[in-house]
Structure formats: structure tokens, C-alpha cells
């Protein structure tokens, strides 16, 4: 770092001496455990890191100061001393009424932003009474068919004051339009709406796999929302570029980092190709990362992500506005790390992961609940998860200083290593012609499938230990309460959407859908006709059927 070359040489010499004396004596007396010391993603970890390991990292250009390029130490100068991260628990189940009740509960418990989980039919663009929705309505999230459901979902919630994140991708334009339409109905100026739609179609093809139309028209829809958002809702984040699902699908930390940033590159290029000035929309791009069990790997990943994005935006895209360079991110603890065995241990895992997110500099955080390997969380379980964040924020002292691990030999070396390996993937994707092409070639999907199979085999061979699963196993069951969704929810929701179809002005709906179709066919921005269609109570499924008719349904090329 700031040490002279001569001093580094002295350090290297001291290290060699230490290896021959102190270390050697220790190893003779007590060998190291017969264990492969690697991160959870299988990146090798050295015994010791010292100043000589970070001699090539420039303390100013590579690490710098918080709130300044390249933002390795955080996007704000004061970080959590200025404002704590947003505690945003993801919630949604049953009908809009059930979820609205949970929202009010979470806000009373001190949650500071809302985050909506939608059910599978909503994510796939089907109405609750579609044959494919059978058995799925209200189960993994809330069912939203029309603007009427949206009205109930946000009943009693001041849209101008609360920021709302919506985990919706393929039909993101429709749910975003419903939120805008709701604001219009309630007289809330669009300019005051704050929140995020996930809207990341690329990671859907790579990992989460809730899609409607093929990658290229999906990109077009996403760019339509960028353009609309720049004009109409300037405080809104029209996308959350998501590594979370990529990681949960089995990617390594490096793959998550690389594929997420490569997706980001594709979206920025898409916006520029539309004719948007990069500095008008780039400041509103947000990110979403997974935080897994390997504490230091996760911290390094988040620090590397900020540095890489800053370089991509400034050097590759020539963005001028510092806000365009900043990678703002929501984080979620790793759902996939939770175990059904000894579920109380999940509280500990989540706490460690949440600490890594905070030390990594997240802007917003969701902590998973201990019961999520079984079902959506109960109220008690979600409260413990939220309290975990509050304990970190107010009791642990970790929010008192900015980037407390900055300068750690290990953390800086690992940050650098993550960055280097992620660039290698990004270069490969560039060679393939960008992420959309790479997806069409199933390249990231194959890389992830390989990594997840490798990891599972390591678990089978006990090269990676999971407490309560392949080691420290207990025969004593640890029963916990599970949230049950009443099958009645599906019947009620099916009735509701059918009633709305019967009561609305159907001629008007058909005219709106025809207008949407014309716009989609002509390549115009679809957001405006979608807003009009949802105001006429066109259903989510009807609008998505227009997309399917114009662009065709996506069919995956299933590979194992």
C-alpha cells in the first residue's frame, strides 16, 4: 500500500524467516487440520495475509475514500452514521387483504420500507383463474390480478411517504403501471413515488426462470420502463439488477458478481441504444445481492461490486454524473443456506450473513426467517428476523464507523481477487456478444449448473460441512410452527377476478388492449397504454396475453 518497495522486500524476507522458524516449529508440533481451506465458492484461502499481499493495490485509486470513486469503501461519506440501511422484509401471501395486514404489522414493528412478494401466477403473468394457476394462488406471495387488488394491498399506506419494492420481473411493467395508476387515483403526484421494481428479465432466464416472452422483447419492455420512469417517476428505481437468484440457483460468489454486472452492462447499453442519455437513467439503477455463509467472501464481493460498477460506468460508458457510478444495493441473506434440520440454527446463520451485508456496505437488507425452508414466514419468525437487523444496528456497534474492515490485508486481497476473477467472466461474455447472446447460448445457465453440482458433491463428501445436515446431526426433531395458506384463498381470489371481469366496461378494456397491441407491434413505448389498460381494470393475464401474442412465449432449452 503506502509502504515503500524496500519495506515490502523486508516484509517478504521476514515472512520467509517466519515460515522457516515459528511456523515450521508449530507445524512440526501440531500440523494443520486436514482440511481444504477454501471459501464456500471454493476459492483457495491462504494461511496468512500481510501487507505484501496488497502491495499492488493502490490505497487511493483502488480503495479510496467512502462517498468517492471507486466507492470501494461505500457510496456515502458517512455511511450508517448518517442513515442506517433500510430494513425491508419481503412479505406477501394469500390475498391482498392478508398481505396488507402483514404490511401494517411490519411498519408498526419498525420496518422502514415495504417489499412485496407476488405469487407464482402473478410472476408468470397468469390470472388466478387460469388453469396453470391451479394450486398456486396466494401461496408463495400475494395474488394480484387487477388494480382493485392493488388498491386493497396498499390500503391505508401513504404512497408518497413509504418506499415500496416489488419483486416482479416478467410482468414488471404491468405492476409498475398499477402502482402509478393507484397514485393517480389517490391524487399522489407521480414524482413523489419512491420504490423499486425488480424488473430484471435477464436473471430470470439465467436463474429464477419466471418468464413470459423471449429475452429480446423482455429487454424492450424493461427499457420501456426506464424511459417512462425517467419522465414520470424520477425518484423511482425502474430496475434492481439481481444477483440474488443467480446465487440461489447455485452460482459461486464470483459468478454471481460477474453475471450481475454483465446484466447491468446489457441494461445500460439497452438504455443508450434507446437514445437515453446515460446520466439520466443510470443514477436510478439499483442492485440486489445474496449474502451467503462465507463471511469474508461476501464482504469482498460487495466491495468488489461497487468498485467494478464505478469503473464500468465511468470508463466503459463514459458516465459523467457521480451518481451514475454508484452501485446502490439491497441485500438478502441466503435462503438456500437455511436448513430444515434444527431450524433454530437458521437464526444464527442469518445473523452472520446480515453482519456481512452491513460490513459490505448494503443500502437495504432483508433477513430471512428461520422457518423459510418450509413455507413463508410466520409473524413470530419474521419478527425475530427483523430484530436481528435492529440488534446489529443498535447494539453491536458495527454501524459506528465506515467500512471497518477496509485495509484488512485479507479483505483487500480477497476483494481484489474477486474483482479479477469476475472480469474474466465479463470478458468472456463480451466475447460472446453480450449477455443476451450469452443467455441464448445458455452459457451462464451451464456455468451455474456445473457450480451447483460441484457444491452438492462437496457436501456429499463432507468437504463442506453443514451443521445439522451432514455433521452434528440430531435425531431430536425441532418442530416449529408453519404458516399455512388456506385453500379458500384461491377460491376467493378466483371469484374476485371473475367478478371484476363481469362488472367492468368490457368495450373499454378491449379498446385499451387493442391500443397496447398496436403500440407493441409498432415498437412504441408500451408503458403508456399499459397504464390506461390497468385503469380500465384489464387483468394482468390479459395484458400479458398481448405480449405473448405479439412476441411469442419463451420456451427454455432444458439442460441437465
Amino acid at each position: 500500500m503506502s509502504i515503500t518497495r524496500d519495506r515490502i522486500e523486508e516484509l517478504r524476507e521476514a515472512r520467509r524467516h517466519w515460515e522457516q522458524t515459528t511456523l515450521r516449529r508449530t507445524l512440526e508440533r501440531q500440523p494443520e487440520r486436514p482440511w481444504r481451506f477454501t471459501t464456500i465458492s471454493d476459492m483457495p484461502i491462504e494461511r496468512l495475509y500481510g501487507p505484501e499481499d496488497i502491495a499492488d493495490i493502490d490505497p487511493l485509486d483502488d480503495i479510496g475514500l467512502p462517498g468517492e470513486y471507486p466507492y470501494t469503501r461505500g457510496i456515502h461519506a458517512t455511511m450508517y452514521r448518517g442513515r442506517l440501511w433500510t430494513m425491508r422484509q419481503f412479505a406477501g401471501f394469500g390475498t391482498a387483504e392478508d398481505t396488507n395486514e402483514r404490511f401494517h404489522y411490519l411498519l408498526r414493528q419498525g420496518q422502514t420500507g415495504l417489499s412485496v412478494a407476488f405469487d407464482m401466477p402473478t410472476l408468470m403473468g397468469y390470472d388466478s383463474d387460469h388453469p396453470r394457476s391451479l394450486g398456486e394462488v396466494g401461496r408463495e406471495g400475494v395474488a394480484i390480478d387487477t388494480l382493485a387488488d392493488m388498491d386493497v394491498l396498499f390500503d391505508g399506506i401513504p404512497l408518497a411517504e413509504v418506499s415500496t419494492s416489488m419483486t416482479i420481473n416478467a410482468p414488471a411493467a404491468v405492476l409498475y403501471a398499477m402502482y402509478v395508476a393507484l397514485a393517480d387515483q389517490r391524487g399522489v403526484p407521480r414524482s413523489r413515488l419512491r420504490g423499486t421494481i425488480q424488473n430484471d428479465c435477464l436473471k430470470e432466464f439465467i436463474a429464477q426462470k419466471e418468464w413470459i416472452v423471449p429475452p429480446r422483447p423482455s429487454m424492450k419492455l424493461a427499457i420501456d420502463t426506464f424511459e417512462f420512469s425517467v419522465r414520470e417517476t424520477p425518484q423511482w428505481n425502474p430496475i434492481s439488477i439481481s444477483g440474488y437468484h443467480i446465487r440461489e440457483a447455485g452460482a459461486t460468489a464470483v459468478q454471481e458478481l460477474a453475471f450481475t454486472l454483465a446484466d447491468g452492462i446489457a441494461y445500460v447499453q439497452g438504455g443508450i441504444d434507446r437514445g437515453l442519455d446515460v446520466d439520466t437513467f443510470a443514477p436510478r439503477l439499483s442492485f440486489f445481492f445474496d449474502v451467503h455463509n462465507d463471511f469474508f467472501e461476501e464482504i469482498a464481493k460487495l466491495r468488489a461490486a461497487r468498485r467494478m460498477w464505478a469503473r464500468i460506468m465511468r470508463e466503459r460508458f463514459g458516465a459523467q454524473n457521480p451518481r451514475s457510478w454508484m452501485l446502490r444495493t439491497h441485500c438478502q441473506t441466503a435462503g438456500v443456506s437455511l436448513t430444515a434440520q434444527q431450524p433454530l440454527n437458521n437464526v444464527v446463520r442469518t445473523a452472520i450473513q446480515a453482519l456481512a451485508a452491513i460490513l459490505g456496505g448494503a443500502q437495504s437488507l432483508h433477513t430471512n426467517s428461520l422457518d423459510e425452508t418450509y413455507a413463508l414466514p410466520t409473524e413470530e419468525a419474521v419478527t425475530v428476523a427483523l430484530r436481528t437487523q435492529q440488534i446489529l444496528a443498535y447494539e453491536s456497534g458495527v454501524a459506528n464507523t465506515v467500512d471497518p474492515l477496509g485495509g484488512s490485508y485479507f479483505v483487500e486481497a480477497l476483494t481484489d481477487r474477486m474483482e479479477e476473477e469476475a472480469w474474466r467472466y465479463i470478458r468472456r461474455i463480451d466475447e460472446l456478444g453480450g449477455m443476451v447472446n450469452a443467455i441464448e447460448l445458455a452459457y451462464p445457465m451451464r456455468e451455474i449448473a456445473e457450480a451447483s453440482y460441484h457444491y452438492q458433491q462437496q457436501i456429499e463428501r463432507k468437504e463442506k460441512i453443514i451443521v445439522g445436515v451432514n455433521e452434528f446431526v440430531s435425531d431430536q426433531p425441532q418442530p416449529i410452527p408453519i404458516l399455512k395458506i388456506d385453500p379458500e384463498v384461491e377460491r376467493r381470489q378466483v371469484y374476485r377476478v371473475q367478478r371484476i371481469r363481469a362488472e367492468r366496461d368490457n368495450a373499454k378494456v378491449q379498446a385499451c388492449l387493442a391500443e397496447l397491441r398496436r403500440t407493441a407491434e409498432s415498437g412504441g413505448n408500451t408503458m403508456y397504454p399499459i397504464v390506461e389498460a390497468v385503469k380500465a381494470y384489464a387483468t394482468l393475464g390479459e395484458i400479458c396475453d398481448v405480449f405473448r401474442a405479439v412476441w411469442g412465449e419463451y420456451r427454455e432449452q432444458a439442460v441437465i
Partner: protein
Amino acid sequence: MAEPRIRILIAKPGLDGHDRGAKVVARALRDAGFEVIYTGLHQTPEMIVSAAIQEDVDAIGLSILSGAHNVLFPRVMELLRERRADDIVVFGGGIIPEDDIPGLRAAGIRQIFTPGTSLAEVVRWVRENVRPRGVAA
């Protein structure tokens, strides 16, 4: 005479896109010497049963995470009975609460593998419980 190879259909019923488990199990079964056919995502019970009959499989492994198992798994069994193919052994796995298992077994699902099951356990179970159809036990 060599015993005919056992054919297994790994299927993802419902709308959830979480195929990590299904793919890992499919690969492990293939590596263990079985013939494995994977349906891909977003399959209806009708699509799964048709594929099973068409491919003449000996077993179907259903993987689901969305909570729709109580509706979709029994529906698969019902369709297999209707099409007189209920000698196909059906097993399942995914995010399935313990409380739901007795009901699924009553519907004819032979085994449910819950999270944390090792691949070796799945392979062993298939070896012990699946025989080529049409061959006397």
C-alpha cells in the same frame, strides 16, 4: 440377460422456476447409471403424465417449491390411474412440510425427500424401490 435400464422422468410441476434441486438430482441419478429424462420447467400434471407414458418410464420424480404440492402431486396420481399407468413409481421432493407428507403418501406418492436429503440417499432409495415395469418382481 442384463437387466433393462431403469428410466426415470424428473419433472417440475407448477410455476416455480427453482430447478436447482431437480437438476442436481437428475444428474446424480444419471451418474448412478439410470436413464434420466428431464421435463424442464412449468409443467402441468397432464404434461407430466403424458411425457411419462410416452417415454415409458419406470418412475417419476416430482420436484416442487411453490407450496402447490398438495394439489399438483395428487393430481399427477389421479391422471396416472385414469391412464392405467399407476404402476409407475412416483416420488417427490422439495419444500414440503412434514405435516403434508402423510396426505401425499395416502395419495400414492411413495417417498418424499425433504430439504437436506443427500444425493446418495435418493440414489439408494431408487435402487431399492424401482423395478423395470412389466418385469415380474
